[in-house]
């Protein structure tokens, strides 16, 4: 993309402020949607007391979490115990910054781009931030000095690193076809040719399955297997610190859905409707599938999880990358 756009610094500031609040609002109503949908799928109503259709429920939850006692285990390591959830939330929020949600608008003399940052290594940046996010889970569980927390955080770390390999390999095909690591360029390439969901169907499948595991969603929610581990790495957390972990988890889900839309489904591109609306629709479809899976599938056993990640997803992702490379280089 051309970098000679007329963008004073305050446009970046205002845009960042608006988008981050939109992401937080999307997270809040993601929790509402999940509870509502799960309720309907289990023939219940879901939250319906706070406001019409329970629409004020996220706000009530926020107030409750803020007012809860800042509980502090006796043996916890102070600074790490408090900082870990904030780091988890930070990495989850920051990863959204490179996902494009719209095209370029001209308002007066100024140019407003539909993305926060268009860095040349956008895709790697998301993976890098996700890798830092693993530290937040690991350190948080370790610093609370409890058996369940420690085991939960070890499980989380092992699961996340196992599936991160498949996740990063599954988008290799997209990188080969898009010829860029910048997500804006990848979307532009898809609009010029074809949505990568068609040629990269195997990549999409691997990406989606690995993505569910990366965000600790069912059926891969082993880190929080409540029958075995109480609550996993956040056993000793309560109040807003627990809230930040759950924020991180939901925002990771949103970011991952956004990434899937960007890499495989043409990003914000689509006929008739404006770009951001298309992006939101596709994002919503992915989040619906995430919630649907939670209502449908039972949890895996831990050895099954590891076997599936290393023995099925990894070879399939590698073969997909190899076949894509051969086809792109020879055709």
């Amino acid at each position, binding site marked *: 993309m051309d970098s000679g756009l007329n963008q004073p610094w305050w446009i970046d500031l205002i845009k960042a402020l608006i988008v981050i609040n939109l992401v937080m609002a999307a997270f809040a109503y993601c929790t509402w949607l999940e509870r509502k949908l799960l309720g309907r799928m289990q023939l219940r109503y879901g939250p319906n007391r706070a406001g019409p259709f329970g629409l004020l429920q996220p706000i009530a939850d926020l107030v409750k979490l803020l007012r809860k006692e800042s509980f*502090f285990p006796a*043996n916890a390591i102070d600074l790490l115990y408090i900082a870990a*959830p904030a780091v988890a*939330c930070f990495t989850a929020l920051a990863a959204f910054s490179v996902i494009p949600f719209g095209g370029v608008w001209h308002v007066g003399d100024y140019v407003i781009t539909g993305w926060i940052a268009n860095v040349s290594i956008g895709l790697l940046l998301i993976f890098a931030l996700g890798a830092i996010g693993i530290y937040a889970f690991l350190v948080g569980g370790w610093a*609370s000095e409890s058996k*369940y927390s420690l085991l939960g955080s070890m499980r989380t770390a092992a699961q996340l690193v196992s599936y*991160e390999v498949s996740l*990063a390999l599954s988008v290799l095909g997209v990188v080969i076809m898009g010829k*860029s690591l910048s997500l804006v360029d990848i979307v532009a390439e898809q609009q010029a040719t074809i949505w990568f969901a068609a040629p990269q169907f195997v990549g999409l499948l691997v990406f989606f399955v690995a993505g569910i595991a990366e965000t600790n969603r069912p059926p891969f929610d082993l880190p929080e297997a409540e029958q075995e581990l109480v609550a996993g790495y956040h056993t000793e957390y309560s109040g807003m610190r627990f809230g930040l972990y759950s924020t991180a988890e939901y925002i990771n889900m949103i970011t991952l859905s956004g990434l899937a839309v960007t890499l495989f489904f043409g990003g914000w591109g689509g006929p008739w409707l404006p770009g951001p609306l298309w992006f939101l629709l596709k994002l919503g479809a992915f989040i619906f599938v995430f919630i649907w899976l939670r209502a449908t599938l039972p949890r895996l056993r831990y050895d099954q999880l590891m*076997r599936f990640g290393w023995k099925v997803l990894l070879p399939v992702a590698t073969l997909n990358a190899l076949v894509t490379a051969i086809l792109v280089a020879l055709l």
Partner: protein
Amino acid sequence: MPLAALDDWFPFLVYGFFALAIPASLIAGSFILATRPKTTARQRTIPFESGVSVGPPKQQRFTISFYLTAMLFIVFDIEIVFLYPVALWLDALGSFALAEFGFFIAILAIAYVYVWKKGALDWRT
């Protein structure tokens, strides 16, 4: 590296500042707004033990399999680090890059088969 390339990162820094400010303010808010317990007892603050409270664990142990998984991750993550640049330039470099790509994956496949045969990919506790 030209300085103009760093301009791309400015919006990310701005956004990252807000991404840091939101969790930090929520943590601070939970300190200010949270209710305080009227009485404190030691039993409340010892780690959760599902029934039997024996106090904090003396030493924390976990199975060696986690370590093995971490080592495997390092091996395959380095593979990915090497594959990304080749993938990026595959179209431009053509058959040379493809040969490199295939050669690299072939070496990796040998290691993968070895690890599989050794049973390192099975989860053992």
